[in-house]
């Protein structure tokens, strides 16, 4: 099953290599990977998607948390969350019907045109995985010349965060709580 995992890490030399090295050493898959600084000094957030059965996912979560410079690990898929990914597509858009078709898809999906030329357009779209996939699939028969995706980033829904916090406060520290290092 596909899982989106969010890591808070110390932004130090070799950090990306450590995480990707861990995955490759243990035979886990990284399908997408995204990393950028957070507001806190020296801390970056890494969001990746992977897949595997429950046991594999549990091991991935535990092993990444074990890395000395990983501060926090969250399995986003386990809780209500908002997920967004950005994609840019260079699509064939010759004057006439083809361009019209492309532009109507842009309108329907609320995408944006960020580059125009004689016979091609670059489109930009942000949305969840389903929306992005659908967009790409509809553009495919028209003629995709180039494509770049960021992979998802995610944030737990605020109500869920509150609920989780209350759960943790009520019950004593759970063996399997992986969201926080004690």
């Amino acid at each position: 099953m596909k899982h989106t995992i969010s890591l808070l890490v110390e932004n130090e030399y070799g950090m990306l290599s450590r995480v990707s090295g861990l995955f490759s050493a243990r035979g886990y898959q990284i399908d997408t990977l995204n990393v950028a600084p957070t507001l806190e000094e020296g801390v970056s957030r890494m969001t990746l998607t992977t897949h595997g059965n429950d046991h594999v996912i549990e091991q991935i979560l535990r092993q990444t948390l074990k890395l000395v410079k990983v501060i926090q690990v969250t399995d986003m898929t386990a809780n209500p969350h908002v997920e967004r990914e950005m994609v840019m597509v260079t699509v064939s858009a010759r004057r006439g019907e083809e361009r019209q078709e492309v532009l109507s898809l842009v309108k329907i999906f609320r995408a944006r045109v960020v580059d125009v030329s004689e016979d091609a357009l670059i489109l930009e779209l942000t949305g969840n995985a389903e929306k992005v996939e659908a967009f790409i699939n509809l553009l495919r028969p028209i003629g995709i010349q180039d494509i770049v995706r960021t992979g998802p980033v995610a944030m737990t829904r605020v109500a869920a965060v509150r609920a989780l916090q209350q759960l943790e406060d009520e019950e004593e520290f759970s063996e399997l709580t992986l969201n926080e290092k004690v």
Partner: protein
Amino acid sequence: MKMRGARILLEALRCEGVNHIFGYPGGAVLHIYDEMIKHAESLGIKHYLVRHEQAALFGAAGYSQATGKTGVALVTSGPGGTNAVTGIANAFMDSLPMVVFTGQVPTNLIGNDAFQEADLTGITRSCVKHNYLVKKVEDLAPTIKEAFFVASTGRPGPVLVDLPKDMTAQEIEFSYPETIEMRSYKPQTQGNPKAVRRAVEAMLEAERPVLYIGGGAIHGGAHEEVRRLAERLNLPTTCTLMGLGAFPASHPLSLGMLGMHGGYWTNMAVNNCDLLISIGARFDDRVTGKLSEFAKGARFIHVDIDPSCINKNVPCDFPIVGDSKVVVQQMLDEIEQMVGQGANITPRQGWHDQIAAWREQHPFWCNPDGEIIKPQNVIKELHRLTGGKAVVSTDVGQHQMWTAQLYGFDHPRNWLNSGGLGAMGYGFPAAIGAAVARPNDLVVAVVGDGGFQMSCNELATIKQYNIPVKILVINNGYLGMVRQWQEQFYEHRYSHSNIEVAPDFLKLAGAYDVPAVRATKASEVSAVLEKALNTPGPMLIEMQVAREENVFPIVPAGAALKDMILA
């Protein structure tokens, strides 16, 4: 006071209470060695020059296994570091606290394919607990502080600190951080009280419990607590290869080692138990055999300081993350509380009787064969002559298994070996490390002829520092364990396992001016061994043993524990 990085390193080691380091110089670490000859003695640091970087790492490992202190090794860049990788991987697999300093080319040359450059942080990333590359001399002291903290806390492990040469040359005011706190690393030592209570309830209920003790109990210093727990609840207790000595072998509750070469009665007990209480062990494949058949029907309590070990191999009913010593004490307190509230502790005599019956059916065995020396008897004789109290280091192979089976260790930290990695060449340099750490104890390296030849150049090291290690070479002219597998599973096809072409070990030792003796007949073993053990100073003792002996029982790879081959 302003000083160059090389000196800061030594001052930092002094602040960390380091007294012994094992190393080998080279271009990238020349500044460090220069400061060493100037200041090490006044800082209370003694450096032991080995003859191969691998021995420096194995020496630091043996030092660590024998004391629990953090081993320290120093090697140069490039080939020095790559030679050290085996030792680093060994420390990683056996969770040994170790800090390894490697030289590196100057920062402006990194990434340039410079002379003796190797990306050591990249190469070792998958076999260290953590590693650092120092790129600013201001970071040097805090990095060393952090390195020692990470290496020795939580689940211990090797930490590598890569030191570019210009970092050791630049000068800065020295100040060593007094405290340390890391937002990303906070090992948990206290077990969850609810989890402890549930586990103790299960332990009181169990009819056929087994206590399974691993290396983690030794790292945690939990042997006293473990013994009290076993005695309080009448628990038959088994130790893994890395846990030997955590529970006294001579104790009536001791089952000895379990797993691939464990005793018949031990594996039967584990396989037929209804509750397996694991303290500081990781359910390694050498212990479990075929996972789907391992202790079927039993519930598992798993106490481990590393949360990633829990539920990794076997599904766990009662997970408890915490330090072994702390958690077992919590268990003992909980037991007393429950007993105070009326709980009963049953003696479970039927279970003990069953285990005793199994032991009688198939004890360890070895058939005498006239004057041919049996390696098993050499180990038994070693145990008898040393009162079971020597510090024993082994290499890897059959002799390692026989020592684990037959040399009963009653105390922790007297047993040194390469368990997880199984690196040949370990036995002799590790014994050197132990002898450096414990100069008043008898240290014996039991090695095979194969493993010994991987590190025999360290004879020069023991000669240089007059380190009184006794090297007991079990010489059968084969890579014994490989030959055994080729006999049992490859229809006697001995492919490249015959190493009878070897030096005369007495002459080899003599070439290093190390005294040596030999026994070739069974009737000579006792006298030769006794005399050698009682002669002060380093000595090599060669036992020319039966060429083809097998370790029994053996659980074939991938088979279930109950499918042990007994003869």
